[in-house]
Structure formats: C-alpha cells, structure tokens
C-alpha cells in the first residue's frame, strides 16, 4: 500500500518504574496499521496490549523507538502537543463509558469540541447532534447517562469519540461491561463506521470472539507481538443481530 499508514511504530519500548522494580511493558514492538484497518489487539493482562494502546493514543510517551501517527513522529512531542493530537486525530472509547454524570448526552458529545479550535455553540450543537444521530441516538439528545442503558451510554461515548472526525478510533474493551446482544450492537456500529467512513479502528479486547469482528488480530504476550493474522471468517454484526432477534422470536 502506497498510502501513509495511520500507525507506524518501530522498535517501540516502554519501561515503568514501580517502586524499585522496572517493569518492561513493551520490549520492542514494530508494526504498521494502514488507513481503514479494523484491528483487534488481544493478549492476556500484562501482555502490553493496553500499554501499546496508551502509546498509540498519545496518552503517554514511549521510552524508546519511534511512533509515527499519520506520518508524523509524535514520540517526542510535548504534553501540550500530545493533547492537541488527542483532540484532533484520536477518539477514545472506554470500557466504563466515562460519561460525565448529570450531563446530557449532547453535552457529553460536545466536550471534545470545547478543547480544540473554537467552535461556535450552534455549530457545536449541530455536530454533536449529527454524531449522536450516526450512532442511532438522535432521539435522546437530552437524556442523562442515568436515563440510558449501558449500550446507549457506550453509543454516546462513541459519538463523543467521533465528533472531532478523528482518523483513529481507539476502543479499550468497549464491550467489557455489556451483555452479548448489546456487545454485538456496539461492534455493529464499529463495523459500519469502518466500512462507511473508512475510520481506522484499533480495538483492545481479551475476548477472542469479539476480536473476530475485526479484519486483523494482533496478539501480544510479554511486551512483544506474538501473533499477527488476518481474520478469515469475519463475523458480521448486522447478520448476527438479525439472527439473534429471529431466535428470540422463535423462542
């Protein structure tokens, strides 16, 4: 592929000091994720997949190696520059949704626009409403998180991640707090965004079946990549949802 990959890392290392002990969370990771990919990062806890995601998300800086995001070396960026990169180029979805309590869905989605280049209030509202519309919550703009189900809350979080039109969407165990049907729903949204908008999605999960919704699975173990494969029989969330509902009716 000729195009610049969204993520290109070379020999990436990360070492933490926990007390007197040095924890080598990443021990030299090299990898490229082209534009429009849907990648699942798997591995047991402590394998380095979360550390990698934090580095990829510019929440932290690597100890060694090079990280190029959309062709730009961000591995030596200042904290201030990293904040700007997070704001414009990256969207996060977390396991615990991390919505602001007692704040309406639309205000939650507007949040990233408050920290970027100034956006007029009216435009902010329009864009946030469009993002919520895209995840199927167009009718619940003024609902507060405690009035929404887990799946709906995660969809608000996805809308928030999308609102600044990032090139990269990072999802950290996004289905960890959801039941199976809602998990399929959320994965369906990711698949649709990936297919329709060409957004690059990197998903961290420890559930093997969730990884099968992606097109590529990268397995981490002991701070290194141990597995990098294409998904041969990719799961289609749209199909499964229809089957799921048909089964429910039959029973």
């Amino acid at each position: 592929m000729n195009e610049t990959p969204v993520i290109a890392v070379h020999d990436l290392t990360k070492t933490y000091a926990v007390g007197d002990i040095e924890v080598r969370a990443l021990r030299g990771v090299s990898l490229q994720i082209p534009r429009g990919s849907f990648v699942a990062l798997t591995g047991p806890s402590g394998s380095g997949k979360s550390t990698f995601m934090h580095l990829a998300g510019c929440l932290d800086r690597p100890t060694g190696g090079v990280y190029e995001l959309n062709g730009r070396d961000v591995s030596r960026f200042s904290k201030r520059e990293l904040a700007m990169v997070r704001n414009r180029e990256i969207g996060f979805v977390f396991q615990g949704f991390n919505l602001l309590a007692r704040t309406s869905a639309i205000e939650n989605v507007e949040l990233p626009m408050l920290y970027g280049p100034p956006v007029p209030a009216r435009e902010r509202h329009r864009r946030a409403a469009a993002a919520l519309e895209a995840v199927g919550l167009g009718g619940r703009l003024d609902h507060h998180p405690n009035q929404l189900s887990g799946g709906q809350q995660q969809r608000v979080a996805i809308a928030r991640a999308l609102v600044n039109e990032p090139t990269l969407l990072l999802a950290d165990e996004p289905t960890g707090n959801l039941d199976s049907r809602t998990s399929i729903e959320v994965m369906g949204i990711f698949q649709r965004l990936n297919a329709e908008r060409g957004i690059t999605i990197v998903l961290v999960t420890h559930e093997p079946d969730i990884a099968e919704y992606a097109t590529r699975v990268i397995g981490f173990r002991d701070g290194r990549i141990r597995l990098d494969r294409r998904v041969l029989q990719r799961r289609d969330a749209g199909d499964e949802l229809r089957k799921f509902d048909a089964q429910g009716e039959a029973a």
Partner: protein
Amino acid sequence: MSPITTLSIAVTALRRNAMRTALTALGMIIGVAAVIVMVAIGHGAQSSIESRIRSAGTNVVTISAGSNAFGPVRQGFGNTTTLTPEDARAITDDVPGIDYVSPGVNTRQQVVAEAANWNTQIQGAGADLPAIRAWSLEFGSFFTEQDVSRAEKVAVLGGIARDELFGPGTDPTGATIRIGNQPFRVTGVLARKGQAAMGPDQDDTVVVPYTTVQKKLLGITHLQSITLSVANGVSFQTVSPRITDLLRTRHGLAPEDPDDFSIRSLEEMATVLTSTTTTMTWLLASIAAVSLLVGGIGIMNIMLVSVTERTREIGLRLSVGARDFDVLLQFLVEAVVLSLTGGAIGVAAGFAASMAVSRIMGWTAVVTGDAVLMSFGFAAAVGVFFGFYPARKAAALDPIAALRYE
C-alpha cells in the same frame, strides 16, 4: 477554551453539589460579612466622634496657662500666673483672623439652690463664649459684656446643672442660687450639647463672668485659659505662631525659655482621635479577616475532595484533548467562583448586619465602598490562593492513571 465556557463549566460543577457549595461558601460569607460589619462599626465610631468634635467647634483654639519651672521643679499646667486678661485683650487687638476671645477661670464648687444642691464646675468666661462654642440658650439669656466688666454675680446653668438644681425641663431664669455662700442670679439655661469627645459632660456646668470667679470666688487676677475662635478660612497653623510670639514677648521669655502656656485646637484633637479610631477599625477588620482565611481553608479542603472525586472526569477531559492548563484553569475558576459568590453574598449580609447593628444597638455603622472592595478583593485573592494547590494537583494527574481511577 473560551472564558465563558470555562465559567459555565465551573458553575455547572458547583451546582451539581449545591449543598456542599453552599456550606463552603458560608465560610466566605461569614468572613466577608464580619469584615464589613467591623469596618462599618469602626467608621461609625469615627464619624460620631468627628461630629461631636465639630459640635464643639473645630475652629476653637484653647490657650492654657502652662507649667513653669522654678529651677529643677516643674509644675503642672495651669500653675503659672502669667496668663492675664490683658493677654486676652492683646490677642484680640494684635492677632488678625480671630473672631471672639473668652478668658477662662474655672473652679469646682458646691452650688446650692432652694431645694437641692450640686457640686459642679464653675466656668468663668467672657460674654462671647456662646459665640465661640456655638452654644445657644434654652431659656433666658447669656450674661453681657457689662456683667463681665462689673463682675456681676450672674450665672447661666448648663442642662445637667439645671436638672439637678431645679428639676428637668424647668426654667429657673430669675431664681437665685448660692455659690460659695454668695447669691447669684440665674439669667438663663444653655441648650444641651452632650458629652465632649473626651472629658466631662459639657452640660454639667455653671457659667459665670470670669471676673466674678477671679474676684468673688478665687481672689486671683490671672487666667487659667483663653478660649478663642478663629475666623472662617483662617487656619490654626497660621494663628498659632502669632499668638505664641505675642505671648512670649508679653511674658518676657528669653529665647531659650520654654513656653509658659500651651495652645491646642479641637481640630488637632480631632485628628488624633480620628487616627485612634482608624487604628481600632483596622484591628477589628484584621480580626474579622481571620475568619476569611478560615473560609479559604474550607474552600481548599472541598476543592481537594472534589479533585479526588472527579479524577475519572479529569482523565476523560485529558483524553479528549484538554491540556494541563485547561484542567488547572477549570478548578481554579471553580474555587474563585465559589469564593466570589460567597463574597458577594457576604457583602449583602454585611450590609444587612450593619443596619441591624445600628438599629438595635443604636451605634452608627457606616458601610464604606473601600470596605466592600477590600473584602471582595480579599475573597477573590483567597479563592486564587487556596484554589491553586488543588487545581495544580488536578492538572498534574497522569491521564492513564486518572482514567483507571476507581
């Protein structure tokens, strides 16, 4: 982030915990209100002292016979006999800018009326005393220049002396009282003036011609004091050295001799008293300011709790692109909004309390603009000062740790 957005985020966050916000603000409210009330009471005291001094007349100058040194022995004020009625006349004639002059000789005697007796101050004065002290009469008239030159046994009663001798509100004009066993005819009663700024009640007095006190009561020829009033627009500072020169020459003092008299004006006294009450006001205000400080510590405490509670929120804000500075500002603005809201309510409460104090206690309490500004500014400073540490703590959070915080 625009300032308005920052402000609205802070206000929203504060409203989410309305009860806690109210209690924290209460510390500031009490602090600011206390400062305002204390300063108001201080200013009230000051202005009431000033008005009393003004009632005695700030253009009044008093010359007292001074101490005299006989070799090493120095006597107290009023013990020299060098101050004379001729000095008073010379001042009238030779010093420009003087309206009225009244020689003074005082004594304390038992005064006996028909039904009662009373020990009071017998004030020997000239006929111009009412003009100098702006003293009007309730009944009758003051004694005249002729009474003075003839040393007539006439007396004008002060309000209290009249009350004690004849009963409150009575008009004893024409009655006879006895001072030192000599009969005096009462010619009038002075209108009440009230307590002097410092010293005895001005109404507890009997005024008689100074010549009468000299000849009939004390048997002296010198004066204890000369009271005079300076013309409008003439200052004490210009008159004082002229009088000093004149009296030194008349008393034949050598240049190295100290003055055998002293010159004071009420204006000068007013300045001293005002500066005293100013000191008191500041003392009261600084005691009250301690409660502002305590209020500030309350704000810091709550902000620290708030930062801990909202660690995940901070993590999220950082992950969507907030800079450290944005987080710092958010919490700082919250603290300042909290302290300023408390300050504003405190100003209102201070106003109300000052009015209540002056209504109930009968004190004058004057709320001044600078007290309001000062306590409001102090409240803002407290917010910034005590809000900074928690805000910096919030801004220093690691985004990953903050996102995972349980």
